[in-house]
């Protein structure tokens, strides 16, 4: 399915680098299209991805969900292809295709036999500038995105809670709006709204091409010149600037109650800096902090204290993802053991963090994390598509190829002190949203 990247309560996926492949080639076309080619010649397969530097956070107020809606509409007709023809041709060639939308980017990809690169690149280039939307297609597809929202968000109390928490986290920045959109705005999204977003952002100077697999970089460049080269850039396209957050002056707390909230938990997210071009050290320290604090239930600080030593928690975790265009969050959560209240769970989590701030980082623990990072560079070579996704996300989130390539060494250089300094900088309750998720509490009725 055309997928929406969900960002709430993801398992603590560590932002370990996936870079190990040496065969990385880059080039930029005259019209501004940036490209990265990753070689892996073990199987005759290629992943072709086109990423746009435009996502839900680039929408105007009032049309939330238009970036994602447009992603769906890109599978409709162009001047050369009928509606649905794009996927049909990919499938007829044994390939598969899909797309995704996030706050900072929208991406389209096809996985296909390597000798079909010319074909899929031609079609992808075609739909960058030549979409032909009919009102009827828009009407039908709007029903589909409303069904998608019903399936993925409205039927899932955890997803609704995540939406509320993001809205509480960001007073002014568009990260506070859901990628799929608020339902009342989705129902009003129009063909014109979609085309306005399309004409502005779907252009070679706002796009990143990633080709990963059994390919020759020189041939990829020739194909890119042939297909993407003739496309006109959007004139006057500025660096993206979104409304920024005012200083947060008060702690924010929400209690989300839902009869279908089966498993109560507490989640706290602090606003935190993201990876910036040429300035990734703090983000590296936060990446390590998340792993040390909540990476593994058996060995992390939260896991050992709350799941093993005290058994106050069924589950704990900490998470941080630095690949973001604007400020991101550092989060941690606890599922308290049955019988413990959410307040007790939250207090227990806070106590462990407070103790950690006194004790500091165990050097042996940091050494283990670093050895896993080194290993991840080897394992990552087994999946060149995910390397491609890493480049795509980074380059559409304000980072450069050099930043991506420097990342493993920057992680390797993080010290115990760096981690504690980053933790002191981020762990401020005034900078946080704390959410409780539970069933409605039964009211005591006195008669």
């Amino acid at each position: 399915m055309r997928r929406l990247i969900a960002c709430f309560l993801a398992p603590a996926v560590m932002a370990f680098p996936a870079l190990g492949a040496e065969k990385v080639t880059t080039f930029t076309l005259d019209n501004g299209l940036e490209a990265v080619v990753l070689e892996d010649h073990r199987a005759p397969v290629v992943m072709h991805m086109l990423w746009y530097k435009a996502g839900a956070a680039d929408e105007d107020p009032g049309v939330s969900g238009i970036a994602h809606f447009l992603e769906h509409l890109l599978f409709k007709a162009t001047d050369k292809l009928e509606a649905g023809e794009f996927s049909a041709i990919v499938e007829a060639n044994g390939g598969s295709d899909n797309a995704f939308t996030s706050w900072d980017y929208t991406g389209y990809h096809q996985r296909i036999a390597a000798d079909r690169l010319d074909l899929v690149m031609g079609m992808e280039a075609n739909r960058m500038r030549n979409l032909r939307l009919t009102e009827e297609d828009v009407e039908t597809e709007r029903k589909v995105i409303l069904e998608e929202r019903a399936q993925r968000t409205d039927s899932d109390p955890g997803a609704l809670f995540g939406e509320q928490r993001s809205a509480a986290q960001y007073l002014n920045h568009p990260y506070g709006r859901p990628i799929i959109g608020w339902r009342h705005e989705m129902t009003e999204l129009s063909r014109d709204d979609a085309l306005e977003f399309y004409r502005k952002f779907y252009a070679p100077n706002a796009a990143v091409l990633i080709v990963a697999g059994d390919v020759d970089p020189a041939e990829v460049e020739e194909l890119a010149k042939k297909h993407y080269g003739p496309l006109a850039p959007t004139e006057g396209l500025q660096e993206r600037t979104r409304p920024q957050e005012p200083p947060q002056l008060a702690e924010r707390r929400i209690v989300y109650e839902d009869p279908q909230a089966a498993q109560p938990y507490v989640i706290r997210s602090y606003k935190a800096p993201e990876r910036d071009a040429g300035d990734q050290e703090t983000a590296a320290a936060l990446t390590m902090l998340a792993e040390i604090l909540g990476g593994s239930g058996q060995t992390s600080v939260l896991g050992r204290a709350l799941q093993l030593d005290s058994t106050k928690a069924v589950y704990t975790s900490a998470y941080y993802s630095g690949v973001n265009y604007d400020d991101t969050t550092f989060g941690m959560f606890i599922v308290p053991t049955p019988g413990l209240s959410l307040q007790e769970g939250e207090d227990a989590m806070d106590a462990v963090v407070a103790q950690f701030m006194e004790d500091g980082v165990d050097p042996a623990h940091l050494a283990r994390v670093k050895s896993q990072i080194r290993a991840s560079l080897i394992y990552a070579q087994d999946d060149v598509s995910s390397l491609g996704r890493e480049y795509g996300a980074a380059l559409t989130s304000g980072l450069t190829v050099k930043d991506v390539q420097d990342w493993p060494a920057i992680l390797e250089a993080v010290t115990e002190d760096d981690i504690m300094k980053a933790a002191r900088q981020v762990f401020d309750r005034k900078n946080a949203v704390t959410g409780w998720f539970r069933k409605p509490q039964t009211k005591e009725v006195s008669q």
Partner: protein
Amino acid sequence: MIRALLATCFALIAFPAAAIDIEEVTSPSGIKAWLVKETSIPFTALEIRFKGGASLDEQGKRGAAYLMSGLLDEGAGDLDSTAFALAAEELALQYDFDAYADGFSISAQFLSENEDASVELLRKAINEPRFDQDAVDRVRGQVLSILASEEEDPNDIASRSFAALAYGDHPYASKLEGTAESVATLTREDLIASHKSLLTRDRVFVGAVGDISAQELGVLIDTLLGALPAKGPELPSDAPFLLSGGETVVPYDTLQSVALFGHLGIARTDPDFFAAFVMNQVLGSGGFGSRLMDEVREKRGLTYGVYSYMALREHANLMMGQVSSTNDNVAEAISVIRDEWQKMSEQGVTQAELDKAKTYLTGAYPLRFDGNARIANILAAMQFDGLPIDYIDGRNAKVEAVTLEDIQRVAKRMLKPENLHFVVVGQPVGLGGSN
């Protein structure tokens, strides 16, 4: 113009067979494995599967296999839970133990430089799990938490309702994770018994891909598996299928209904298996070209996703499908699905659809073999399913050989709209109560 482009694409098709060189290895003690050597990256991916899995849970002990799978790395040999995890982290050993309906799997990836120590750690988990009481209670708590969450998940409600209605007293009738009641009563002895009956040498299948020689692999296999019990208990018999055509509504307070549907299917060993497989590609295998996707989503906007699939298990083969649709729309979605079922059953597919499905299936097949871990999985699964070692080379020819008549025959025989039972979770408008 579009037609011309498509025609050109078809003309170009000449997919390479997957260039996979599989070697059968027999360990010194006689355990067989399939190996693909791939030395370009210094690690090995290993996939071990035992037939049986959660289907061997004893009466009243549902969830034993699943809980057991979560405890193999929570203390083994001389290492307690934390010591085991620390050792794995130091070696950057990646592993996963998993119990599923018909099997138990062990997946591992280890660096060549750490091979011996990694294998020793895995050996302890596979052969000497401790099942310390504190670890049992802790992991049990996690399972109960998962069960509590799934209790309120419409998709989960649909699948457990369907299973309970369909499978009578067969193990398939209940979730393999167990119920809150069954999991609460599982004892350390139950887990020891589950470990002993599931991990046995008489039904184990091994696939390995990576930087390892046949001889090394043989030794490794004996180290990991040589000391396991020779035989396990008898596998369960075939499951009944008790559902007949109709609808069962499971009322649930939600905006959108989830419908899971199915009737009897055919086995992988059936002479018409490939015909059915190709037929389902046209009917609803999930791609955007499928008839169900086209009719229910693209033309009418009634859903975000609709699929049909052949649900193949060791002891039951069903033809199934799933759709989610707003309460107001779900009756229409179901009616469209029934119509498509009927149409396929009566008329089969067109030549153009058949050609398209074949081109997709044969072209997509070699793309599966692109990574050590993925290939190791395929190798173990092929052996588990009883496929020959040269299956990969001949597989596309079997797809190519399917004719319009084959599809017509299997569609008529297998697709029975009148037998299709829909379990609908939600507050569907316009659907009757149970049956």
